[in-house]
């Protein structure tokens, strides 16, 4: 379908409420996604698997079709490699607390980077505390991307078992060279986990091309509902891993003193899964894929470049990260001399411009920049040039209050 932007915008009823520039936190949902979940609850709702009635069959079909949609979306080899989770956070925790717990010992380390979100930091710190393994950090280079020389050095030590890395920073919008990193990781005999929570709505993902071992994403950042996410894992890895949560749905057989697990993906989906959310996610993916990625990326690139040049005109404003907007995707964060990000973001919010203030769940990165918090501007497919033009006047008003 052609990229008719004013038409896209009309499909998001909530955009009438204000200028939404907080899509990195959660994206808005097109009407079709909202409708698909309503339709599911009105006509197909039942629990999945083993219900011997028509509604359960419909719900199971809808749920499994959603899995196939996700499989195609990230080009996984098979649908069994797609585990539905509650979001990226659960996906990473699942890997840390199953694969990590079994495979990392005192001699081993997990390599993460300064660009990570807390959800790709704390599960590894927990693992370190429990298994006595190490967590090592890759710092940034002068381009504000991860320092490949340092990555090489860590990998050369021979003790790295896993490299867990974001595809796109949720603070500076830097995209990491995933393919290069994953290649190097494999050459060093380690596995690679990709946190695609930010990347997935802004860039096509092909797990077979990337050759990543694990990848996580969140439905709600992908124009889908909250409460659902995806863990992709290579089949042989998922099959070798112990279960994470146990209980209903994920078992093959339960005896009084032991149980056996179902095959993947069910093994990792204990309890009633997010069924309506899977339907919503599938609709969101279908909706997004009606457009060409080239058009989406070109449109979003123009918005980031416009934001960058607008913000650069404001005196006392510093953009964190790259000095070239070409190296920024999806979001950028900034600080203004003499105005705390909470005050700034509150004031511009009152002017109808909705951004986010805080450390954006990336405290180590903020510490690196020597600041406690920043204001983040993030975009989605529905934003336009007019949205960006509203930023500067709103910020100028805040500056006036504090001058």
């Amino acid at each position, binding site marked *: 379908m052609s990229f008719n932007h004013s038409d896209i915008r009309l499909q998001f009823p909530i955009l009438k409420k204000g200028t939404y520039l907080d899509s990195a936190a959660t994206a808005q949902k097109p009407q079709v996604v909202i409708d698909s979940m309503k339709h599911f609850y009105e006509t197909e709702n039942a629990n999945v698997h083993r219900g011997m009635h028509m509604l359960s069959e419909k719900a199971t079909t809808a749920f499994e079709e959603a899995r196939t949609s996700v499989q195609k979306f990230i080009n996984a080899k098979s649908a069994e490699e797609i585990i539905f989770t509650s979001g990226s956070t659960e996906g990473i925790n699942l890997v840390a607390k199953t694969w990590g717990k079994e495979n990392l010992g005192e001699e081993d380390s997990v390599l993460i980077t300064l660009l990570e979100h807390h959800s790709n930091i704390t599960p590894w710190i927990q693992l370190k505390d429990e298994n006595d393994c190490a967590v090592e950090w890759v710092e940034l280079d002068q381009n504000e991307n991860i320092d490949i020389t340092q990555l090489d050095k860590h990998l050369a030590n021979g003790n790295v078992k896993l490299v867990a890395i974001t595809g796109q920073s949720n603070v500076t919008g830097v995209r990491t060279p995933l393919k290069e990193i994953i290649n190097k990781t494999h050459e060093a005999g380690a596995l690679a986990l990709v946190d695609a929570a930010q990347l997935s709505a802004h860039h096509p993902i092909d797990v077979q091309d990337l050759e990543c071992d694990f990848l996580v994403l969140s439905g709600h950042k992908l124009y889908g509902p909250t409460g659902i996410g995806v863990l992709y894992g290579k089949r042989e890895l998922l099959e070798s891993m112990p279960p994470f949560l146990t209980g209903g749905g994920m078992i093959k057989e339960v005896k009084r003193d032991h149980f056996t697990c179902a095959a993947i993906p069910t093994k990792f989906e204990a309890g009633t899964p997010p069924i309506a959310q899977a339907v919503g996610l599938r609709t969101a993916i279908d909706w997004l894929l009606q457009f060409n990625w080239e058009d989406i990326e070109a449109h979003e690139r123009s918005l980031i470049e416009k934001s960058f040049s607008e913000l650069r005109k404001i005196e006392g404003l510093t953009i964190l990260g790259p000095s070239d907007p070409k190296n920024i995707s999806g979001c950028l964060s900034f600080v203004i001399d003499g105005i*705390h*990000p*909470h*005050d700034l973001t*509150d*004031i511009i919010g009152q002017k109808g411009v909705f951004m986010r203030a*805080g*450390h954006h769940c990336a405290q180590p990165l903020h510490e690196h920049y020597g600041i*406690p918090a920043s204001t983040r501007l993030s975009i989605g497919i529905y934003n336009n040039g007019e949205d960006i033009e509203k930023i500067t006047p709103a910020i100028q008003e805040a500056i006036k209050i504090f001058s």
Partner: protein
Amino acid sequence: MDLYAENILDHFKSPRNRGEIKDPTVEHEELNLSCGDKITIQLAIENDVIKESQWKGSGCAISIGAMSILSEELEGKSVEEASALSIDDVKKLLGVPISQRRLKCAMLCLHTLKNALHSFKHEDTQSWTETIGQEEMKNE
């Protein structure tokens, strides 16, 4: 009236009682975890009366402004009187409407003071929920 009233901005730009006491009777630090704002209060207490209060910290205009305003009220108050300060008292002092999303900013000073006084009295510290109570659940 606007949250960023002249009074609050004045205190933010020229904070009162920001500094250190040489030998404080008690010192206590609290954070607003949702934003990283941090305040440390020092109190000099003699015969259960606050003789001096100083504070340091970093944060937004609301948390810093409120701390500065509250600090002007403490000198001469008995420990009992200071312990009895409520969020309504702080709201009155600020004199502007505090929205739900900024309540913790505005009450970081009170939360820190309460726990400094608990610490002085060798009591357990109180949680944020205890400080802002049901107020947190109220709609704007």
